[in-house]
């Protein structure tokens, strides 16, 4: 890095500016969360953990955190249960109109989430009388499908398609082949997809906005509600907790499954 600064000063300056622009607001937020004062002013007045304890004492946040975790966990499992077989079929099988199907699995990224949220609210919550929690799970599962299909698909594509044939040729039936060869080869991709999906669900706002009910709201949505009435550092503290969780989860991925390996190449 020192060498880069010396040989390409302009590029280094631009890089530094970009990082500052991206991380600046986050740094400010973290600073504000630890303030001893009463406002979101920056620089913060003093150092205190009072806003963290305030956040943990506020029942709607605790409930919302529970909701977020449940929704994230269930949706991730469902997105994997649907996405892994789908990507296997797309990658290894002969699917008619394969490109169209792949596009379909990519669609949730393209469709505006608020539109999806409204549709789910109208048709699923009101029309079918499903609870907010149910609608949240449905919505999040759909949202996470592109990630599970793509990320697992990437690790499958990197693997030699002859591996399964080799197993079959040696005497392993289709089931044995799947569990002893295909699944282990996909494992890094599945782990990465799991964590990526979980974080995406945890941090989601637009989709979850309309899908609320009595005692049911995801944490980011609850934070939004709070900010509309009170404007104090509690929100900053909750943000920092959420950020810490996401970072911890991303860090674990890197260690466990070589996250970058799936996106790199």
């Amino acid at each position, binding site marked *: 890095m020192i060498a880069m600064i010396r040989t390409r000063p302009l590029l280094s300056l631009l890089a530094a500016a970009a990082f500052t622009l991206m991380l600046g607001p986050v740094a400010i937020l973290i600073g504000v969360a630890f303030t001893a004062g009463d406002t979101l002013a920056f620089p913060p007045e003093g150092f205190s953990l009072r806003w963290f304890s305030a956040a943990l004492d506020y029942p709607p946040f605790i409930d919302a955190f529970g909701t977020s975790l449940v929704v994230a966990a269930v949706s991730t499992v469902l997105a994997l249960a649907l996405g892994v077989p789908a990507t296997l079929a797309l990658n290894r099988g002969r699917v008619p109109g394969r490109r169209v199907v792949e596009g379909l699995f990519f669609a949730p990224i393209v469709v505006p989430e608020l539109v999806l949220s409204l549709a789910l609210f109208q048709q699923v919550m009101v029309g079918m009388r499903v609870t907010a929690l149910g609608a949240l799970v449905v919505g999040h599962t759909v949202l996470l499908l592109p990630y599970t299909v793509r990320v697992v698909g990437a690790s499958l594509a990197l693997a*030699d398609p002859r*591996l399964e044939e*080799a197993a079959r*040729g*040696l005497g*392993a039936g289709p089931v044995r082949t799947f569990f002893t060869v295909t699944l282990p080869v996909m*494992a890094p991709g599945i782990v990465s997809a799991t964590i990526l999906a979980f974080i995406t669900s945890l941090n989601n706002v637009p989709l979850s906005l309309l899908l609320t009910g009595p005692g049911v709201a995801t944490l980011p949505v609850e934070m939004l509600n709070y900010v509309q009435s009170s404007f104090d550092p509690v929100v900053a503290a909750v943000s920092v907790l959420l950020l810490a969780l996401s970072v911890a989860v991303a860090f674990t991925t890197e260690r466990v499954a070589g996250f970058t390996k799936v996106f790199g190449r």
Partner: protein
Amino acid sequence: MTPVVELDRVGHRFAAKGTAGTTAVADLDLAVRRGEFTTLLGPSGCGKTTTLRMIAGFLRPTSGRILLEGADATRTPPEKRNIGMVFQSYALFPHMTLLDNVGYGLRARKVPAAEARERAGRALELVGLSHAADRKPAALSGGQQQRVALARAVAIRPSVLLLDEPLSNLDARLRVQMRRELLQVQRETGLTAILVTHDQDEALELSDTMVILNGGRLEQQGAPRDVFPRPASRFVAEFLGYDNFPELPGRGPVTIRPEHVRLLPAGEREADGDTGLDGTVSAVTYQGAGCLVEAGIDGAGGPGAAVRCLHPADDLRPGDRVRIVLPRRHLVELPAGEQR
């Protein structure tokens, strides 16, 4: 004696939407005897890999039957066929050690764990890699991976070893060395082997029987010593490097290898019975041990008007007059009226 592998009028046609489809293999009859090394040889697209994959069970023939050890196996799935397949890309399981890789087939056949480990160990020893038993495939070189792939196929004692261009991914020198090791393993185990290749040197060195395929059809079949000096068709001759198809007055199509053509100084005469023609040198390419000399035949025109000769000396130059000699015993007659 029942052949280990028998193909009875086997064909494969890829059906494409709206068209008649492409015929990859047509009406192929083949019988492979126990303990023999058979190679399927031909250019890309000749159907050799398709044929191998049908024998393995990864592709179902659209016509004909495949018999393994005398029993109809046309509809049998690959895992029930007792074959040992070696792939061009080796296809070693990346998440297992070498020993586990080699033992995979044994475990799949429910061989007791201790026996499986022992047999896997012996197979690894056969290819000289027992010291690396606990390593993973990624840590190995191409040649070593190839050896492990071979050990893995051999460990299950299959009826037939199927090899799909196993040496094509190796560099030239390693290929020659691995070729010899492959033959040695086959001899030591006594396994029947079918190998697919486009490399005629490989086929010549390894085969007990060479099977030359062209456009999905069998062109010629036999021991290298019978096939090589006597190509049965223009296709086979060209494929085997017979670079000369001179048009001789009063004779049908013939062919001769460049190393068998002799160039005498103009005025000298050939021996009785040999064919001699007057000609002029048109090109000389120095090759160190000799020269590749191209000479035009007097009075001839078109593609059959020139012969190529591997001349052992460097004493000819373009424009020189020569007596082109085609020795009778090396001149091969080809079927008349053949399409290329």
